[in-house]
């Protein structure tokens, strides 16, 4: 169904929903925005072209969480799986919503499903806000996504100035919007025009066709040394990435808990073995792993690209490394001979 949500009714609408749901929406923290619980005092940040700085995956897969508690003396163990909670994530961007569906393939499919992910995911509605002004660092149109991509969303909002054009995408959120006035054909046309214009403002930076094969071919080539030369080896690109899911399990001996923390293949210690052997000893191998995982291995694991083009890694890389340029260079690098010329 299609509805119109006047902007001046937004806060009262959210307040009404908040009786039944806890609502998470982007709000300003200093210079950036972050998903925070909506309260009567909240001021939403929906106009900023930039996405929230911290990725929305954290709402389902927090950076640090206790997975079990133990008592070393009694030997008692206790699982710390969370309770499912009715939540609405309001204003999530399409790239982040798509990323959540990508992470479903890791945590919610096949054997050994992750109860932590499932509990947070089951009753959480994703109400997305399309990007009518995509940023120059965004590249969702190149990554099987787009500024108004609907994958993973329960509803999608299009900013039409005074009103949001709402398109519901799943049965389960229909009741939330049923009191709103339905959108007419004219408004839908305006919305489509806004969506098309946004899409057009973001031309593709690379074609995905054959990119996996091209990258697989250059796996052991020198290009990775060149691409990773200025890399600092920090965790920004992976921690801010909405699809990176690597984690570490650590015993906090002083608390008696085993916690799960985000981890990143960009750290030296990530792959360092107790014998001191490190299969990825330099930034060259680590950078390669990050890019190959997203642009080659994901396809084999899940049949999908592991990047949604949100642009966070481009925007916040402290040395200005741009994954778009890196992928382009790597996939264009066919042979050492060509490089020498």
């Amino acid at each position: 169904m299609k509805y119109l949500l006047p902007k001046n009714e937004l806060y009262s609408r959210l307040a009404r929903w908040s009786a039944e749901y806890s609502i998470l929406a982007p709000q300003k923290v200093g210079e950036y925005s972050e998903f925070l619980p909506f309260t009567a005092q909240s001021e939403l940040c929906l106009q900023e072209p930039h996405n929230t700085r911290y990725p929305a995956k954290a709402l389902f897969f927090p950076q640090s969480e206790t997975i079990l508690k133990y008592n070393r003396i009694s030997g008692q163990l206790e699982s710390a799986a969370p309770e499912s909670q009715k939540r609405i994530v309001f204003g999530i961007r399409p790239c982040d919503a798509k990323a959540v569906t990508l992470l479903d393939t890791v945590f919610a499919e096949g054997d050994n499903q992750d109860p932590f992910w499932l509990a947070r995911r089951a009753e959480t509605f994703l109400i997305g806000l399309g990007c009518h002004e995509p940023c120059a660092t965004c590249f969702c149109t190149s990554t099987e996504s787009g500024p108004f991509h609907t994958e993973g969303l329960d509803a999608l909002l299009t900013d039409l100035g005074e009103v949001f054009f709402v398109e519901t995408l799943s049965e389960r959120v229909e009741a939330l919007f049923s009191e709103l006035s339905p959108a007419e054909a004219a408004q839908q046309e305006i919305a489509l025009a806004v969506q098309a214009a946004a899409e057009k403002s973001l031309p593709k930076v690379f074609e995905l066709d054959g990119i996996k094969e091209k990258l697989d071919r250059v796996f052991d080539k020198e290009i990775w040394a060149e691409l990773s030369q200025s890399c600092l080896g920090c965790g920004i690109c992976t921690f801010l990435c909405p699809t990176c899911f690597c984690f570490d399990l650590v015993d906090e001996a002083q608390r008696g808990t085993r916690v799960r923390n985000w981890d990143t293949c960009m750290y030296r210690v990530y792959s360092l073995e107790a014998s001191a052997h490190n299969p990825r000893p330099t930034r060259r191998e680590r950078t390669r792993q990050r890019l190959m995982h997203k642009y080659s291995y994901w396809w084999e694991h899940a049949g999908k690209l592991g990047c949604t083009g949100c642009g966070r890694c481009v925007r916040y890389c402290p040395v200005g490394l741009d994954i778009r340029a890196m992928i382009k260079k790597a996939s264009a690098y066919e042979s050492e001979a060509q490089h020498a010329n």
Partner: protein
Amino acid sequence: MPTNPSVPNPYLPTPMRVLRAYFESTDRTLKTLELSFENLADKIAFFKKFNPGQFCQLSVFGKGESPLGVASAAWEGDFVRFTVQRMGSVTKALHELKPGDTLGMRGPLGNGFPLADWKGKNLVIIGGGCAFSTLYALTKHVQHPQNRPDFGQLTVIYGARSSGLCMYKHDIQSWYQRDDMEIHQAIDVPEENWDHHVGYVPDVVRQIAPSPDNAVAIVCGPPIMTKFTLPALVSLGFPPEAIFTSLEKRMKCGLGKCGRCNIGSKYICKDGPVFSLAELNALPADI
């Protein structure tokens, strides 16, 4: 869309107790732990899934988890055996455990050896160092009278740096008396009173030259040994589909989620640790 939040916590270990703990090597870097189950249900669940070649995550609470290959066969009894090399903080803590101590275990994890595919074949088992532990489990499994008819000839080649580092000495000594298998042991440098092979495993393999006819070769050992043994087997005529090895990498979850043991399209913990050489050749050289 995920719908079922009531799945069990796969990171929660099952409680275990140390039944026996003894050193395997004279330098005290290798220690064998035999663990018994605290709960009957856990024991039933474990043996329902268990297959030689699989591994478990052993937990020492406060220190963390360490992935270790199972070194016992199911018929040996209601316990699970591991041989632990003292290396990092967790294995050090494992070495400090005494009979009666409790610890956690998750598993069995991974695929294990494809025993069903090997039915009727001759087995050439080649191991080096403490990585022999899972091959010991395999050999024990095959030796059982019920399983023995499923396989043809059984040849075991086991190398260690010195006689002091040879594991499961008593039992292996008894294998020389068996008429249903061949056992070859090797150490790297000559020692007094050692009347078996001397030399590196790849060379010993070339010397023994097991026949590739209707055979599979299983190689587990330190990376350097594996690296040179695989080509030795290829040159003996074993096709890559008939050579198997077990990989190791740093692991955390053991469930194909934490990303750490990723190598190309595979996760060693979930899709392995046992791979055929043919499968390995298709993976990127990221190990």
